[in-house]
């Protein structure tokens, strides 16, 4: 990172800015997609899940695969904010808040999309009133709520000094925005005691979030693995899900940091060295993930047990083969190959392959959820006399709600980018030994 000499320079670079034409168009587009999702959801509420193509056999569709995707992408909060932070990887400081923003936005929509999948969302309270603690679904609800709470705290607490900076330094903003910064900064003055609480809280949360983050994706995998079905009946599923989640989460951070760098001209904060390091990290995570993928498919494919056989054939050479091999080739193999080279880890190529990884990861979740339901252990009997009772292709309502949920999470990220500094100013100042007086005079003292 090029040397920054003063707090004014830092604030000027990193304080929230009004959107230009592109920003406004982007926000408008997201709002429209979300509104369209609301309209479709209204019809789903009115007519029930009959507007979807889900049935007795394929009872989980893209809502659930999208839920798994959201949970996976949210795991990046723990990777960047906790694992890299605790391993003292200073280069990741500019990424911490971007990662936490992604985590909060996605875990919120993970919770929402589950409610969308319920035929009777008005009965959601029954889950808490009558849920069985033996059920992985109840564990999942508990762990999603816990992870959301930790992610919000981990986003909010390190924001306090920055909010105080915005409160004191941003003068030409609307009154409500100033008032918002004033309320949210909790009267932060940067005393030694306040910094002590902040450091203690952030370090504690960074430790707590690791088992919870591993838990959220492991428990999500158990929703499948605790069911006796081909493709899901696997002891490998917990670590497989966690590995896949780290991959898509890291890719999401790369994608967002490229957009931030390009749009806000932040080349000296999000420099090529950070991209290079994130590229290497993504290669390593992708290779671990590939190892689990081989474990997941090789042993059942070698045995070809009755029940699993039809599913594996369907994935390898059947109807799902184009999607399956497309995910492996375009979502894993080509990105890893590109990122092995230094030039491939430059911002633009890395941005492109990161997006390939994200798209591949979404389809991978589709492949985890839906094909298994096409191959039940019990023979598929005729349904209402129709021989091909097993069918599924998402309806227009399902697509529009799913796309709206993805747009919704991007809208939250966009709004947070608009009103919050998405790179931690006080942490950069701390690292660059810049005096933040009067806001952060006690940084060094508290550390000592």
């Amino acid at each position, binding site marked *: 990172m090029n040397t920054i000499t003063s707090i004014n320079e830092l604030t000027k670079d990193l304080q929230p800015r009004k959107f230009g034409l592109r920003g406004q168009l982007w926000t408008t587009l997201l709002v429209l997609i979300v509104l369209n999702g609301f309209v479709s959801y209204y*019809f789903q509420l009115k007519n029930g899940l009959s507007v979807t193509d889900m049935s007795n056999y394929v009872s989980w569709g893209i809502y659930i695969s999208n839920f798994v995707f959201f949970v996976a992408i949210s795991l990046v909060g723990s990777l960047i904010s906790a694992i890299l932070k605790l391993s003292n990887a200073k280069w990741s400081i500019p990424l911490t808040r971007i990662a936490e923003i992604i985590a909060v936005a996605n875990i919120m929509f993970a919770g929402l999309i589950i409610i969308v999948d319920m035929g009777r969302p008005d009965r959601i309270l029954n889950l808490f009133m009558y849920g069985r603690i033996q059920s992985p679904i109840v564990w999942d609800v508990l762990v999603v709520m816990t992870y959301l709470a930790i992610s919000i705290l981990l986003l909010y607490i390190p924001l306090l000094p920055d909010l105080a900076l915005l409160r004191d330094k941003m003068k030409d903003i609307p009154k409500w925005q100033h008032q918002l910064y004033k309320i949210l900064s909790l009267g932060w003055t940067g005393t030694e005691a306040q910094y002590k609480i902040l450091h203690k809280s952030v370090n504690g949360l960074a430790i707590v979030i690791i088992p919870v983050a591993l838990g959220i994706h492991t428990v999500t995998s158990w929703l499948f693995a605790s069911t006796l079905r081909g493709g899901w009946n696997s002891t490998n599923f917990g670590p497989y899900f966690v590995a896949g989640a780290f991959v898509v989460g890291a890719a999401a951070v790369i994608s967002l940091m490229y957009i931030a760098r390009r749009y806000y001209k932040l080349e000296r904060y999000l420099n090529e060295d950070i991209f290079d390091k994130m590229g290497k990290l993504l290669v390593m995570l992708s290779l671990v993930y590939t190892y689990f993928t081989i474990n997941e498919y090789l042993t059942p494919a070698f045995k070809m047990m009755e029940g699993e056989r039809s599913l594996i054939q369907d994935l390898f050479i059947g109807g799902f083969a184009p999607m399956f091999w497309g995910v492996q080739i375009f979502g894993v193999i080509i990105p890893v190959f590109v990122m092995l080279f230094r030039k491939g880890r430059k911002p633009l190529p890395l941005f492109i392959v990161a997006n390939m990884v994200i798209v591949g990861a979404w389809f991978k979740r589709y492949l985890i959820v839906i094909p298994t339901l096409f191959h039940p252990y019990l023979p598929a009997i005729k349904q209402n006399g129709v021989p091909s009772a097993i069918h599924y292709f998402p309806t227009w309502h399902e697509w529009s709600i799913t796309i709206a949920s993805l747009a919704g999470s991007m809208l939250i990220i966009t709004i947070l980018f608009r009103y919050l500094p998405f790179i931690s100013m006080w942490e950069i100042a701390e690292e660059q030994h810049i005096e933040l007086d009067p806001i952060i005079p006690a940084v060094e003292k508290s550390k000592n």
Partner: protein
Amino acid sequence: MRTMKNIFSKLMLVAVSVLIAGNIATAQEKIAPKLRLSYIKHMSGTSEIKARAYSKKGKEFEPCMGVTIGFYKDADEEQLYKKQDVDHMGETTVLLSEQDASAFRDSTGQYHFYAKIEKNTKYKSAEADLAVMSATIDAEFKQENDSTKVLKATLMVYDAASKKMIPGASMPLKCGVKRALCLLPVGKELNNTNDQGQIELSFPNDIPGDKDGNLTIVVKLEEDDNYGTVMFEKTVKWGVPLLHPDNPLASRSLIGSRNNAPWFMVVVISSILIAIWGYLCYIVFGLYKISKSGHAGS
């Protein structure tokens, strides 16, 4: 800038309208539904009108979901009794007390029910009606000294000519024991009544009952063209008491009820939740301290 904002707001308005119109358009292909009514009279005093809305898709029938059915007392549909939404099977049931049912009865003693599917964005309107006469079933349960159990049931039907209840001769009655999902048949599939409207069955001694040996015995006339369904039910101690020495649901296990979760699971999960949420509360308390010191300092 103001012009730009105006353009955006108009753009959004147009796009939202198009999207909403698109969604509505997909829901506007109207289907012609069919409606079927049936009547069930319980000898306990209540009766039911069951309506089923369905449509034909290819060679199959499928339920009409999301429709409302209006039940009327007259053919002109002027005297509305009730409106109800159907369930996911396209069915809805109206419960009637004896007094309610009498409102549907005409001077000849016949009950007339009229129903109509209210048209909506997906379905057209459809009508159906049903006319039934009154019928009753009564039963006696006799146990001989040699422990032979005999069930004697009598069917009486309303005769419009004499305006009296007369024995329902040569009519098929079903008899069985009520189980969770269906009726466990006793005797023949159908037992025809004699001239006195009676049937007599010897009841088996080996049917499992509840823990006290109670069985709910049902005698019914099913879906008769003239009388609908008439159902007699009585709980009698004619079963073999069923004891559950090892009910797995009653002990603490993974498959147990929510109150019978294994202790280790309750302790482990509760401990984890209390520890993490306790720590989060402590963090929030830290925020309170930050706020307090900040405001005190300022």
